[in-house]
Each structure stands twice: as structure tokens, then as C-alpha cells.
């Protein structure tokens, strides 16, 4: 989720140097005028990302943003928040009533409701960065800088780094690649999805193997009638392909449907999200077809080598 936020809005990210987790990062917001004055800097904004109880909701995302970043959150109702006010995400607003809400130990007036292209943000609260600073006792979690020309990004990273010895400056792309949390999430997802995928494929191979074994009698009859091994293998190949492609198509449609539903499930507050890239879909298709064919063709090949009479007898047994 963090990566999606960061990737969307800036080219360079500034966080605190030497901290174990960027969630606790504290960057001096007073750096912003100096950064904005640098050549090739288009704009910059600061943000505090935290989590706190909101009303009766035990935990929700809190986004303290500098005023120039409010436009990132599209207003559905009301206006952008002033000091002592909050803007509620669309999903969260459906679960809260009243004109004010308690965030942490402070009460804030509700100035309106917003929507966002990033699903989970709709389950959170937007407030001026000064209020968020008091709530979480920090100046800013990070500062994001957008540049005028992408070719100048590397040079700007060095320039900004020299402004304060306590900051760590990276391109957002490098940050996302190197951030441990992202690596953990990415690797965990990879391991879990690989396991699930492998088990699914084993299932396909087993089913295909069982189907072929159950048809031994039929293959025996065909062989007895003079049909060649190639004819039998071709038949199985085509049948397997049709079955696998049909199953894949069904699974793909179901997956896309579920993925489209996820951001709208109120209980998840937009935190659970997912996407399916074309390359992943193609990879799954290829692997599924290969495994299904292996699962079917291997027993079929063994069966085609067996004497027709033994096949008929094994099939009848």
C-alpha cells in the first residue's frame, strides 16, 4: 500500500536516516522551502503516515498532509480540512456518524468526505500535517519531491542529501525496491502464491492422471481396433487442452470478479487490494497447460505402450 502511495506522487523521497522502520521516520518539515528553491524541483509535499483509533473504529490510517497535497484526495462532500478538522475517507465515513470524531485522544470537526484512487486510503482520515504532527509527535514522516526533468533526479538526490546530515534521500523507485517491508511482503506473497500454485498444479496433474487411468479400457479398445498410439495421444492432448483452457477461463473470470469486489468490502476498509497483470495471467496459463498435459500425457504414453488386452483388463477391473 505504501509503495502505491509513494510511486503515485513523487520522484524523490526524503526520510530520516538511521531508523529501523520508516513508519517511525521524522523529517524536519522546514527543509521544504530550501528544497523548493532548488533548480529542477517542480514541487514538494510533506506527509505524516500513522494509525490511530478513530471514533469506535479501533484502528484507521491517518494521513497528515501539507496543504498543497490536499488535491490528491478528491472531495465528495464538504471542503478540505483546516486546523482542528479532518476529512474522512469514503469507506470510513459510512461507519461514523456525527459532525465530529475523536482521533486518538483529540476530537476533530469533520469537514467533508473524500475518495481516492488508492483503495485503502478511503478507509482513513486526512488532516493538516500540523495536527498530525501533534498527534504523532513528529514533523513529517517523509517529504516527497517531484522533479521537472527525470534526467536530473540523480543529481537532485545528491544535492538534497547535502542539505541535512540526518536525512536519507532516494528516488522513489529505489526506495520501493529497497524498503524491507516491501521485500518481506513481496517475498512472502511469492512464497505463498508459489505454494498455492504448485499445489493447484499437482491437483490438476492428479486429476488428469486419474481421468486417463479411468479410460484405460477405452484406449485398449481403440488399440485393438487398430488406432495408433499417436491417435490416442492426440485425442488426449486436444481433450486436455479444451478442459484446461475452459477451467482457466472460468478461474480467470472468477479471480477478476473477486479482485474487483475487494476494494468495495467495507470491513476491509480498502486495505486488502489486488491486481492481476497480463504477464502473471499468461504465466499461469502456460504453467497450467504444461502441468495438465504432463499429468495427462505421461500416463497416456505409458498406457499406449501397454498391450491392448492388458489395458482392457485393467480398465475393466
Amino acid at each position, binding site marked *: 500500500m505504501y509503495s502505491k502511495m509513494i510511486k503515485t506522487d513523487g520522484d524523490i523521497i526524503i526520510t530520516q536516516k538511521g531508523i529501523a522502520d520508516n513508519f517511525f521516520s521524522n523529517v524536519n518539515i522546514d527543509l521544504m522551502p530550501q528544497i523548493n528553491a532548488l533548480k529542477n524541483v517542480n514541487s514538494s509535499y510533506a506527509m505524516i503516515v500513522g494509525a490511530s483509533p478513530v471514533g469506535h473504529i479501533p484502528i484507521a490510517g491517518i494521513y497528515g498532509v501539507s496543504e498543497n497535497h490536499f488535491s490528491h484526495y478528491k472531495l465528495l462532500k464538504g471542503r478540505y480540512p483546516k486546523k482542528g478538522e479532518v476529512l474522512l475517507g469514503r469507506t470510513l465515513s459510512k461507519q461514523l456518524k456525527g459532525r465530529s470524531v475523536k482521533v486518538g485522544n483529540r476530537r476533530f470537526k469533520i469537514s467533508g468526505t473524500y475518495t481516492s484512487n488508492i483503495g485503502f486510503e478511503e478507509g482513513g482520515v486526512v488532516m493538516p500535517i500540523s495536527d498530525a504532527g501533534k498527534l504523532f509527535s513528529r514533523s513529517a514522516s517523509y517529504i516527497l519531491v517531484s522533479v521537472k526533468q527525470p534526467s536530473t533526479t540523480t543529481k537532485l538526490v545528491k544535492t538534497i542529501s547535502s542539505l541535512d546530515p540526518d536525512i536519507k534521500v532516494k528516488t522513489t523507485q529505489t526506495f520501493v525496491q529497497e524498503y524491507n517491508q516491501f521485500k518481506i511482503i513481496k517475498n512472502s506473497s511469492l512464497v505463498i502464491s508459489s505454494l498455492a500454485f504448485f499445489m493447484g498444479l499437482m491437483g490438476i496433474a492428479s486429476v488428469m492422471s486419474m481421468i486417463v487411468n479411468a479410460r484405460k479400457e477405452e484406449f485398449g479398445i*481403440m488399440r*485393438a*481396433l*487398430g488406432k*495408433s498410439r499417436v491417435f490416442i495421444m492426440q485425442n488426449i492432448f486436444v481433450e486436455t487442452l479444451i478442459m484446461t483452457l475452459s477451467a482457466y477461463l472460468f478461474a480467470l473470470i472468477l479471480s477478476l470478479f473477486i479482485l474487483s469486489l475487494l476494494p468495495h468490502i467495507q470491513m476491509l476498509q480498502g486495505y486488502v487490494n489486488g491486481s492481476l497483470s497480463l504477464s502473471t495471467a499468461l504465466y499461469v496459463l502456460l504453467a497450467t497447460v504444461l502441468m495438465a498435459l504432463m499429468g495427462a500425457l505421461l500416463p497416456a504414453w505409458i498406457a499406449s505402450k501397454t*498391450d*491392448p*488386452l492388458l489395458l*482392457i483388463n485393467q480398465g475393466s477391473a
Partner: protein
Amino acid sequence: MILAKDISHFYGKEQVLHDLNIEIKQGEFVFLSGESGSGKSTLLSILSTLLQPTQGNLTLNGIPSTQINNLDAFRQNNIGFVFQFHYLINYLNIYENIALAALPSRQASIHALLDELEILHLAKRYPNEISGGQRQRVALARALINEPAIIFADEPTGSLDSKNTQLVYELLNRCMHKGTTLVVASHDMKVQDYATQTLRMLDGKLL
């Protein structure tokens, strides 16, 4: 036509056929008789190339069976089978079951053959929609469709009533008169009336 020399066969450690020597000439009607478990079906399967014998040599039309390059094609071109349990493919209709066995050049003859066997009206039905007698006639049609030189039949009348049994024998007899070689394994001693050679088996040996 068929020459079997010193044929022995084992299922695991159990020997079911013992050094059999058989010669069958073209146009013969051979009746293979014997009790259940005497080895009739195994011998029939070996003679028809469905099963490789553990020991011994089989020669068909002067060619040793081990030297036939494509046994599948050889079977389709030269041999017809009538199995005891019909072994029709249930998801294919009657016409398709016969078409599966037919050579490309014989596809056009399917309807005529079905008509001759009085089962043309069943062409679009599935095997589980017809009687045992009708299924056996379909199995016979499948064996005859390529006009094979040899027909092997294993208990072809095992599940039939006397009327259908008579019909099957007459059909087989007609084939013999056309020059087809017939090898029929059966418990039914009536086959002897049509046979030109009777081979009696007991415990895997020829008497």
C-alpha cells in the same frame, strides 16, 4: 495364414499356456473350445496380436509378428474382433463406434453394413440404449467393417438368446464362405456345426 509355434504364456509366475503349436489356413472356421480358465481367451488374444506371448513365435501371413512394423495398422487392415463383452465406447453412438474402427476407404460402407445386420435404425443410439443382442450385432458390424482377412471372436454369443445366437453364427458362416478366416472361442458346442477345425483346450494345453 496363422502359424503359432511353441507358444507359452505366464501371468506373473502362473503359466497359463504350455508350448502350443497351431496352424490355421485361410478360410478356415476354427472353433476353440474348453472350460473357463483353460486358456482360450489368452490364446485368442495372442493369435490376434493383442497380447505378446511370453515365449514362442507367431507368424501371420508369413511374417513373424515381431517383424511387423506397425501392429496397430496391421490389426486395422487385417483383423476384426468380436469381444465377449462387446466393448463398445459408451459416449459414441452406434454409427460412430463403427466409424472409429473403419478405414477411410470403408467409411461409406457403414450404413450398408448396418442395414445388412438389421441395425440401421439404431445408428444414432448409444450403446446403453440398446439390448445385449443388438450390442453384439454392433460389435460384429465393427469387426466386419474393414472386410478383414481374419476375425477373432471371444464368446460371441455368450449373452445372446437362441434367435440372436443363430443370427451371429449365420453371419460368421457367411464371412467364412467369402474367404474370411474365423477363430471363435466359445463354450457353446453348436459352433462345432460350422467349424472346419476344432481345437480343444484344457489347463493351457491343446488336447
